């Protein structure tokens, strides 16, 4: 598809930045910033994971074992906020930074200095979030959704969370502007929009979603802030406001946010599967159209998170139908991935294993989502562990597995070394097994009525909770295998060829491994 790009490696590999720590603080290079994003998100994954282990330790047995109930709520809240805003989103921005310029034949991102600023806003935001545990009253315990009136009543930890969200939102918007500008203006000659790799397409659409909804979140939390400190009553019923308004605003952000966290995952899977099936992606056009469809539909389904809040039957039906429609383009994507594999010459290295695991487990999360879209069912299982199971199937087995697939897929390009395939396979199989041990029993717990965000539970839930906690500890420890695989790969190993994957055909594989400092100084020719 692409003409070979003869790059003079010696010429390209000249960095102008200072060495040591200042290299990372002052860098404007897309690869350095991508690396920073990825390490940041892995760090936050570990922090959020420690909180999750705290949750599962408490739930290992009925009764209160370790934590005060208030602190348990802090754990669940901060686990959600840190995983969503600190781990998953920055990880995909890291992939975007590394990959988009290389995949479209550009030398770097469009706004290199803003790129630096986007990243360096994140560590202060993370410090605010983590630091909020140590202020009087502790971290916010309102749930990651920060519903009023809980969020208007919390201690100063809530203010820190609000400021952290403001900062992370600003970072996301700047990142999105950068990505859109890079994709629209810096593609290699001949690469029209319809020849872009699907990962780039997913990020183009995700970036628009980010710009559309991050200001909505910022508006919602700012209103909470002014309700808390400046005498407004947006969400205070006693003052003429409406706490349900917060839920509407939050979920108008929150549902597209779900797609912000899954569309780039779709993009990664759409790169990995063709490479290991050694076939072009089946139905590229349909994939692009399905992406657009999912993005549009994501704006008209938000109230399916609010069926139990009280809404007319007409409202319930509207949001049920609209939500179920999303199954159509999502089904198109799953069909296309499987059709890509059909009669392909498949091999199952770690990226492909994670991609197959993604399809299998993400589809289960999609089906439970469909069930939750039906109001009579949702009213039964609202705020139970069924919902917790659903969104972990989508976000862990969906987003996180795709992140691992992408990491193993591109790490030979990034580091110049092949990763340890044995470690990768162990990482995959243990992750898949422990993931299901952790979250599959939660379906049963939820159907049996166990409420989420409660540190104690009735005796009949004990066995499944013990199983889930066991799985959770295993899943957490398994991620250390990933850390070991990455560190081993960075430190050395078998030299990676320019194109370690036989079926990969995008532009980054025409560059040396590791690629030169400025990816494409001379734009490649795309036929």
């Amino acid at each position, binding site marked *: 598809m692409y003409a070979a790009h003869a790059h003079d490696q010696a010429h390209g590999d000249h960095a102008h930045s200072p060495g040591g720590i200042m290299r990372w603080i002052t860098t404007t290079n897309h690869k350095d910033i991508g690396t920073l994003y990825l390490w940041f998100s892995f760090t936050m994954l570990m922090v959020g994971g420690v909180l999750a282990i705290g949750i599962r330790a408490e739930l290992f047995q009925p009764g209160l074992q370790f934590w005060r109930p208030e602190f348990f709520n802090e754990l669940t809240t901060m686990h959600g906020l840190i995983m969503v805003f600190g781990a998953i989103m920055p990880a995909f921005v890291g992939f975007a930074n590394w990959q988009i310029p290389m995949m479209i034949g550009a030398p770097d991102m469009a706004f290199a200095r803003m790129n630096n600023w986007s990243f360096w806003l994140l560590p202060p935001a993370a410090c605010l979030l983590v630091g909020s545990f140590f202020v009087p009253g502790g971290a916010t315990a309102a749930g990651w959704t920060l519903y009023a009136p809980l969020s208007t009543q919390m201690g100063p930890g809530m203010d820190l969370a609000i400021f952290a969200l403001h900062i992370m939102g600003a970072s996301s918007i700047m990142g999105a502007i950068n990505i859109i500008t890079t994709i629209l203006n810096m593609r290699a000659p001949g690469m*029209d*929009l*319809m020849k872009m790799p699907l990962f780039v397409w997913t990020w183009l659409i995700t970036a628009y979603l980010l710009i559309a909804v991050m200001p909505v979140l910022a508006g919602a939390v700012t209103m909470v802030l002014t309700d808390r400190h400046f005498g407004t009553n947006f969400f205070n019923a006693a003052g003429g406001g409406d706490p349900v308004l917060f839920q509407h605003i939050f979920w108008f952000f929150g549902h597209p946010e779900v797609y912000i966290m899954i569309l780039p995952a779709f993009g990664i899977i759409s790169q990995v599967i063709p490479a290991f099936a050694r076939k072009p992606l089946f*139905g590229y*056009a*349909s994939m*692009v*159209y*399905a992406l*657009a*469809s*999912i993005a*549009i*539909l994501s*704006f*008209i389904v938000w109230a399916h998170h609010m069926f139990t809040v009280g809404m007319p*039957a*007409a409202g319930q*039906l*509207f949001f049920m*139908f*609209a939500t179920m429609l999303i199954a*159509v*383009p999502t089904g*198109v*994507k799953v069909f296309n991935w499987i059709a890509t594999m059909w009669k392909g010459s498949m091999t199952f290295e770690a990226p492909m294993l994670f991609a197959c695991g993604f399809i299998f487990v993400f589809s289960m999360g999609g089906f439970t989502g469909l069930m939750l879209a039906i109001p009579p069912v949702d009213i039964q299982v609202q705020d139970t562990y069924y919902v917790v199971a659903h969104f972990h199937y989508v976000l862990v087995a969906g987003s996180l597995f795709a992140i691992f697939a992408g990491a193993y897929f591109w790490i030979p390009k990034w580091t110049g070394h092949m990763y340890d395939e044995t470690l990768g396979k162990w990482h995959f199989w243990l992750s898949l097994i422990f993931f299901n041990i952790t979250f599959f029993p939660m379906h049963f717990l939820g159907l049996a009525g166990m409420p989420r965000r409660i540190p104690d539970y009735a005796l009949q839930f004990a066995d499944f909770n013990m199983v889930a906690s066991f799985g959770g500890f295993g899943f957490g420890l398994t991620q250390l295998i990933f850390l070991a695989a990455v560190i081993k790969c960075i430190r050395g190993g078998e030299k990676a060829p320019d194109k370690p994957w036989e079926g990969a055909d995008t532009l980054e594989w025409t560059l040396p491994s590791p690629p030169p400092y400025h990816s494409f100084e001379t734009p490649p020719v795309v036929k």
Partner: protein
Amino acid sequence: MGEAQKPGRATPLQVARAVFWSFFGVRKRAAYEKDAVSLTPLQVIVAGVIGAVILVLSLVTLVYFITS
């Protein structure tokens, strides 16, 4: 791959058709490649907004008939 027709501006019907299929998430390759050379971003955005409004209105109508 090699389409010979010159990239003229798409007719409103062609834009509507492209947006309809995008809502469904499926498109024939030939039609897609024709879209790629003839649709402008402005056309797609305007048609997409109109399409979203039509979708919402048709769902509201459907719901109205079910609940009435």
